[in-house]
């Protein structure tokens, strides 16, 4: 091989390596990294939102209700579930498991939140749902058709779930609706 060829080969190899590095990094960044970053957690019970809405004709507020003082109660308490599920209502395995593991021992279900906001954000469901009558689905995923409870992806670094709403989403909507975006609206 001539010296020139050597140089050409080396140049080609160089560009090949560049592409390998580039593609590898893209692969790591887009595919490997998200898998590493998030741990997958499953709800303690395979909850079926669809069946509650379709067959029991329940609305979101029946379980995700507001307290008397207007504050949002979040995830339902066991006592709310027991109103219907003191004894099995259906025949699913999930319900049987729920009754034997939680209803009978009187233990609260450790639901995992899909959208837990950081402590430094003051978010009022009352202001958004009660006052300006926003739909739940304007911010949350629509769970109407969900027959199984999807896995929750928890960010290993931050401890928050992946569905967490980022600040720009809040700001965009506030800007569109002519609501103040001043810091102390959300950061008290």
């Amino acid at each position: 091989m001539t010296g020139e060829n050597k140089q050409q080969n080396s140049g080609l190899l160089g560009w090949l390596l560049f592409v390998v590095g580039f593609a590898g990094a893209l692969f790591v960044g887009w595919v490997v990294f998200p898998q590493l970053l998030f741990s997958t957690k499953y709800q303690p019970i395979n909850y079926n939102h669809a069946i509650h809405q379709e067959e029991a004709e329940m609305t979101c507020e029946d379980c995700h209700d507001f307290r008397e003082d207007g504050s949002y109660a979040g995830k339902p308490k066991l006592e709310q579930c027991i109103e219907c599920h003191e004894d099995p209502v259906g025949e699913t395995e999930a319900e049987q498991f729920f009754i034997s593991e939680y209803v009978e021992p009187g233990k609260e279900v450790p639901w995992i939140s899909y959208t837990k906001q950081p402590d430094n954000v003051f978010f009022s469901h009352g202001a958004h749902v009660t006052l300006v009558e926003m739909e739940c689905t304007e911010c949350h995923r629509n769970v109407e058709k969900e027959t199984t409870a999807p896995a929750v992806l928890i960010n290993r670094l931050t401890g928050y779930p992946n569905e967490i709403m980022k600040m720009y989403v809040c700001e965009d909507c506030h800007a569109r609706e002519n609501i103040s975006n001043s810091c102390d609206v959300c950061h008290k």
Partner: protein
Amino acid sequence: MKLDRRAFVKLIAGGVGGTLLSPLPWKMADDTAIWSQNWFWRPSPERGGASSVNTVCQLCSGGCGVRVRLIAEKRAVNIDGNPTHPINQGGICPLGAAGLQYLYGPSRIETPLQQTGKRGDLETMKAISWDEALEILAIKLRRMRQKAKGLVCVSGKREGTVPELFARFLHAYGSPNYNVMPAAADAESLGLFVSQGNSGALGYDLENAKMVVSFGSGYIEGWGSPNRMMMAFGGWRSNPKRDRTKIIQVETRGSLSASKADEWVAVAPGTEAALALGLAQVIVSEGRYDRTFVGQYTHGFDEFRRLLRQNYTPKEVAEITGVEKEKIVGLAREFAGTKPAVALSGWGQGRMQGSMYDFLAVQSLNALVGSLHKPGGATTTPQVPLAPWPKVVLDATSLTGENEPRLDGSKGPQFPLPVQLFHNLVKNVNEGNPYQAEMLWVYEANPAHDLADVQPFLEALDKIGTLVSFSSFMDETTQLADLVLPGPTYLERLEDAPTPPGLQYAVFGLSQPILSLQFETIHPGDVLIQLAKSLGGNVGASFPWSDYETALKERVKGLADSGRGQVADEPGLQPWKGGQGRQLAPNYDSFDDLWEKLIEHACWFDTSEAMPSWESAFTTPSRKFEFYSQKMRQVGIRGNDLTYLPHFKPVEPAGDPRDYPLLLMPYETMAITNGPVANPPFMTKTLFDFQLKGNDSFVEVNPKTAADMGLKEGDRVALQTERGKLNARVHLTGAARPDVVFIPTGLGHSGFDSYIKGKGVNANVILVAQQDQVTGLATWWGTRVKISKV
């Protein structure tokens, strides 16, 4: 084919390029920021529903009803006043509002502690279990039973079932040495004893008074029940102008109370009582007194009149007090001519024992104008009809103990009057007279910081074998303890709150645990019951209850059985309206109902026994109000006529004026608490920067005095008294009269936690307490001082 340097660089460049086009760096940067917000030590709010619980504040003896906001029923986030509580009517003071800083503050003691090394060394304080702690104490108590009288207890809480349990334990064990921290209530109780026949507390019907003459009382600075006083002050000031209550403040210092009064009468230091007698003299000599009351319901008026004529004419009083003759005459006429008018006694917040004669001088004014047991006047605080506990079971040791002389010398040959003399106890312990103190128990008190003239107390500790603290906090006294049996804070425990000082009707407040115990603490009442059971014998038999709650309920049954009073369950209650002895229709029908309502509303009150009639009010030998006290004679006080009459008897401040040219007077302010808890950080923040700047305390100096000494605002000075030396900075103010300097008490903690300690200096270190030779009461109204620039 070989991977050369260039090719490697290209690989890396490709990697970097690819990485930049992937979410990795951006997501990592964002998440790292969020991660940094979640480090474990940053506070995270409790999530859940909010609820409100009523309870009673126990941070001072004010007895205010508070409402605590709880999240998820376990995290307290706010304390506010309870609008249904008649004392504070929804008001709250800065101390009460800062209560959560005690509950969650780092100075809380988490487990029982035993000192394994040298006293005061926090490194050698070892955490032990409750079983161990109680066993250690029980063994010590069993061993020293033959020297049972050597057990001393000092309580900062003066009334209530827990202090009573402590007194009961000492009684059963065989010690006469149950004590309370000194306060103006001591002089008051003695004064009532010698003039009206009953020891007790004085209540003032201030809400109905048309004129209030305060002899040094910080009526809006923490005197009595602070919130009640704020409410009363609001009432005085909200009256239409022509009908508004006139306030006169007689005080040496231009305090906040002086500035808010209609008139400030700036008397010479320590001469308030002389002015009171001067007013009395004018009222008597001009015949302006209440002839019915004086004629039919008083004893010794002639002797009193003679004394006034001889010693307290306006001319003489003007010389003593520095107040003009005309002013004295005018004030006396106004006081006698305004109905109802009342005179208040007890300096500042009422922390200083002071002088019984000062109290008598002021109260003689109320007697002269018939303002005793009348609406708008002064009365004795009615008793709460609690059922008594069974009698203490005594054995040979406790019977001997009963008859032993008390270490504080009260009811003894030198000081025969029934009063607690903690300063005298300290002196006697230091002298080993008449016997050794073996063990000291401290409950709701922090004498190592709060006791005026603290040095002798610290020396006395060296002579006491064992110091046991029941505190919830690592205060100065607890730091010196050999054994710490930490109690829960008032927000975590059941305890009664008796009628506060200065109130004219009966109140029974109930603190309840509004949340679960934060640490391994046990209620001091339960500790005593368990300890008694472990000792067994007559001590065990004297504590027959399974726990404190049972013991408390037994007493509350008396309340239910009396059928008196009401549970305060609606806002706007005004028990002071409706005159003397107003009967209330009870709003409970059984003990269980009453208890349930007490848990819910936290307060019972009663007006039926407020302001007894003049026929029944006095239990003196003459069955009258005694200007000339026969009761003093009865208990064995010997002296000339003067001894039995109200008179002005100044206790000279300690120190030779040639060495210590100025007079140092302590003062109290609402923004600084005076124990047993230290100033919470929230309150310290409210201090002006001429009260506390950085960690520097200030001493108030008159601009003229300062100019003579070449001192400017903010100069650093050393204050030297006979007892010791402190450094402070100078604040120039006209509120201080020339030649007198003023320093606030309550600062300068060395215990508690890093947020509390080191703020300012503790004035109690350099004050010198003097003793009244008739009553034994201690006073520290002034100490001579030398100031030098540093």
